[in-house]
């Protein structure tokens, strides 16, 4: 486990956080039901994500068992309405989580329209933002004034951050990553996407104003530290996004 700050740890080598004083695990951007939407658009990707998500979740729990889990938005993929498959996948996933966690907390993302319908069945509360102690949990798609946030630590998703690395001879390697750093005196931590299908945005290539999250467009992203994930293997740490820009 890699300590990010205080009581916050990244669970190696997974896209998940462990926060010890809240006794909780945090994951973001699951995009369940991706394949259904894809097939409706004429891209017939076989349904594999659900199975993979459960396997990863099992491994995470094996590494660190917590009482609670926070799903940091975009649990499902479709914007409008809920398809039958999506409904079933989300339900099944919540069923699955209920085995391991006493409490499930959902923070709503921009894809999570109608999520409350599913959540209600499980008596899970859905929050736009969730706060506890000095933590603020948001998905990250809505703009906010960081200065006015009362909590010291902001945990978010939405961006699907990744970094791009190039070897001497120009091979591009893409790693999903955590980003963390300071903004207006607060600590900001961005989670990588949990979804198998999520295409990351290469934060060290894309200019700041092109970032997805309006929150991140306002912070000094170049000063943020990077924890890259070598899938199924380990973490790889880098001192900052800004310095990585020089190596591309």
């Amino acid at each position, binding site marked *: 486990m890699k300590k990010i700050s205080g009581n916050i740890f990244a669970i190696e080598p997974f896209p998940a956080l462990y926060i010890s004083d809240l006794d909780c695990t945090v994951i973001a951007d699951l995009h369940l039901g991706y394949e259904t939407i894809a097939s409706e658009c004429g891209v017939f990707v076989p349904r594999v994500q659900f199975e993979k998500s459960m396997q990863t979740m099992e491994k995470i729990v094996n590494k660190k068992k917590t009482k609670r889990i926070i799903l940091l938005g975009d649990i499902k993929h479709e914007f409008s309405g809920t398809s039958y498959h999506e409904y079933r996948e989300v339900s099944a996933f919540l069923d699955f989580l209920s085995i391991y966690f006493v409490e499930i907390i959902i923070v709503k993302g921009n894809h999570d329209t109608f999520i409350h319908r599913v959540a209600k069945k499980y008596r899970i509360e859905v929050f736009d933002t969730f706060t506890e102690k000095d933590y603020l949990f948001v998905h990250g798609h809505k703009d906010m004034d960081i200065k006015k946030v009362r909590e010291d630590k902001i945990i978010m998703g939405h961006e699907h951050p990744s970094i791009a690395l190039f070897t001497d001879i120009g091979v591009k*390697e893409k790693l999903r990553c955590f980003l963390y750093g300071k903004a207006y005196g607060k600590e900001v931590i961005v989670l990588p996407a949990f979804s198998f299908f999520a295409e990351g945005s290469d934060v060290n290539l894309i200019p700041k104003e092109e970032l997805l999250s309006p929150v991140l467009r306002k912070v000094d992203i170049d000063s943020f530290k990077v924890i890259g994930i070598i899938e199924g293997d380990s973490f*790889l740490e880098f001192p900052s996004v800004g310095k990585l820009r020089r190596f591309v």
Partner: protein
Amino acid sequence: MGISFLREPWTDEESLSCLDKDVREWFQSKFKRLTPPQKFSFKLISMRKNVIITAPTGSGKTFSAFMVILSELFRLSKERKLEDKVYCIYVSPLRALDNDIYKNLMVPLQEIKRKLGDDIDEIRVGIRTGDISPYEKQKQLKKPPHILITTPESLAIILNSLKFVEKLKDVQWVVVDEIHELASSKRGVHLSLTLERLEHLVGKELVRIGLGATLYPLEEVAKYLVGYKDGKERDCIVVDVSWFKPFDLKLICPTDDIIYTDAEKLNSLMYKELENIIKNHRTTLVFTNTRSGTERVVYHLKKNSKFKEEEIAAHHGSLSRDIRWEVENRLKNGELRAVVSSTSLELGIDIGYIDAVVQIGSPKSVSRCVQRIGRSGHGLEDTAKGIIIGMDRDDLVECGIMLKCIRERKLDEVYIPRNCLDVLAQHIVGMALNKKWKVEEAFSLIRRSYCYRDLPYHTFISLLHYLAGHYASLEDRNVYGKIWFDEDEGVFGRRGKYTKVIYYLNIGTIPDEVKVDVFTTNPRRYVGNIEEDFLERLRRGDIFVLGGSTYEFKYARGMRCFVEERKEESPTIPAWFSELLPLSYDLAIEIGKFRERIEERLKRKKSIDDIVSELPVDERAKKAIIEYFEAQYRYAKTIPTHRKIVIEKTTDLNGRRVVVFHCIFGRRVNDALSRLFAFVIGKKLKTDVRITINDNGFSLMIPENKDLDIDDVIKLATEVDMEKILRENIRRTELMKRRFRHCASRSFLVLRNYKGHKISVRKQQIGAERLIRVCQEIDPSFPILEETYREILEDLMDIRKAKEVIEKLKKSQIRYEVIETKHPSPFAHNLILLGDADIILMKDRKKRLMELHEKIMKELT
């Protein structure tokens, strides 16, 4: 009987005797005598033989195929036996050609009808392409054309139209035009299955007539046209009259000193030559090898020459159909002095009188060269006049030998793709929409196509499983399955309410052309667009030209590419790279043979003047070629040939160590070989290797401090499993992703059109890498993955010939020679200067990442 050649023609009287009286009279009133192809074709077609006719432009090819058919139709018409059904189908790859044929057929039809008046029923001709309106289609259904003119895609669609297909049940003749163009692509593979399905539908053998220009070997193309029956090729008679037209060929070199003339000067000298040629002829057709080249030449001729702007025009695939059509018309009306084209005017569209063809730079294949030059001299006995302007020393050698090959009538072999699973997938869906099939019955139909004659049964079955959606869970099959397939019963058929729509909207083999928009980063400004495959070649920091300015590539996001303007920096990657035609294998071998003769002379310190004089080249070109060979031999003491690979250890201009493999087997073979050697060397030295490749060889860049034993490398290269290595090597490349997307879209895994929406390429692109991974996890030999590998290894590269080269290397039928040079030898220069590079991945990803990390951290502290 199989495939046979016919050399002796019939007399005109004999030929004309098989035409109906009125048709014959019309023909005789129009033409004094029969053209060479007609002397063969009239009799053959009236005997209902399958024929393939190759003849040059202006040889009355159209009528050689159609006269007898018209005659038969008039006979029926006079006897009032003409029914409302299609008798003849004509297929060509171009709509423009369809329109020409329509016009050509209307002349005899109207004139003969006028003469006979109301005594006969009208013979109808109809065009059916993607352009025609539903109203037009409705009309064709009520009054079907007796001669249907169409394209391969539209013909395939017709086979699934419930009502119109009824009108095809008695088709007798199928004419396939420009067969050389079709046969070598997936479009042609698609057509070969369409023809077998059509014949199956008709229930009796069709008379197949193939028309084409220059082709070799004709036996294979004939087999392609007629297909197989019970495992044996059907009969076909080959008529080859492609050579009766005299050729006047010349290669010119625009400068006395091709090495030390700088690019700008060379260009202006080239334009001077070009202007002279245009001035001395009535209408000149100029071919460049790329669209951007076409634009540049047209720009120059319009602005900086004595010609009026309206006398010069461009014609290439990026121009709209209207513009092209207008240019064609102005050509026909003799209003143009010169038209510049990349490939679009290669085919037989009617463009009127052309008296000279100029080719700037090498067209890379003998057949293509003949094809292009054959566009001139429209009259039957007119000489086809072709002038090539060579732009560098490799060009001069290549083109000189190319022209010599034309004189000796040596063409390069046509390549016909085989067992394309994506194309087959489309047809299986189409077939399933027709009816319920017994697996055996469908399989034997498919194997009648030349392109699938040896399709393995288990491959066919795995494709059926894929199309039935068996890769998805049971409950998902309604969404994923395009057919249902019961393996136990051995039957398959249609499935799903959308399948028919999906089929109609997504049929075809030509991938969507993708333009990537280019923006400057700061300020954000749109500067133009580039081809998607060019974007894939770009690496950060690459500098390229777009619309006359130079830009540095920064990053790409989806289908947008971001750049910064870089004034006064020279491009690192030529913008035309992705368009560049590869040197053909056969021409490469001819070059190799020529080099062998030269070397033999040089070894004996004899003059090579007379050998070089065999080439139809001007004095400057001759001088340059002689100097080129002599310099190479003086410096390297050896000349690489098709039987001797020269491996040169040297340093490039930046002092980096490179190993140059001089191997003259054509670029498709070099592509495969370079990856194999890069892998072997990379494995030995435990490093990644950078590849540069061109038509005359490839070079590998290796780290400073490592020593390389070439004998070892060769030994290893002959021992490994080439196919396995190449597959691993291309697996993670951008090339794989893009080709996978094409194959996935042809086999309906990723649709271009669905439920009335056009699916943007951007969406199709969604996680190509992920999609590949998913398919791989389901089944490592998932049909679409297999097809992607096959397409890259067999169609894009030439793994078969590459394996042959390695096999010969093993048996010492091809030798190799290692030399060390301080600076690259002359033959290596073009290669060393080339901005293109590819990479072979050696190290595993984790290790590479760790090293990268380490390097970055070191530099930071």
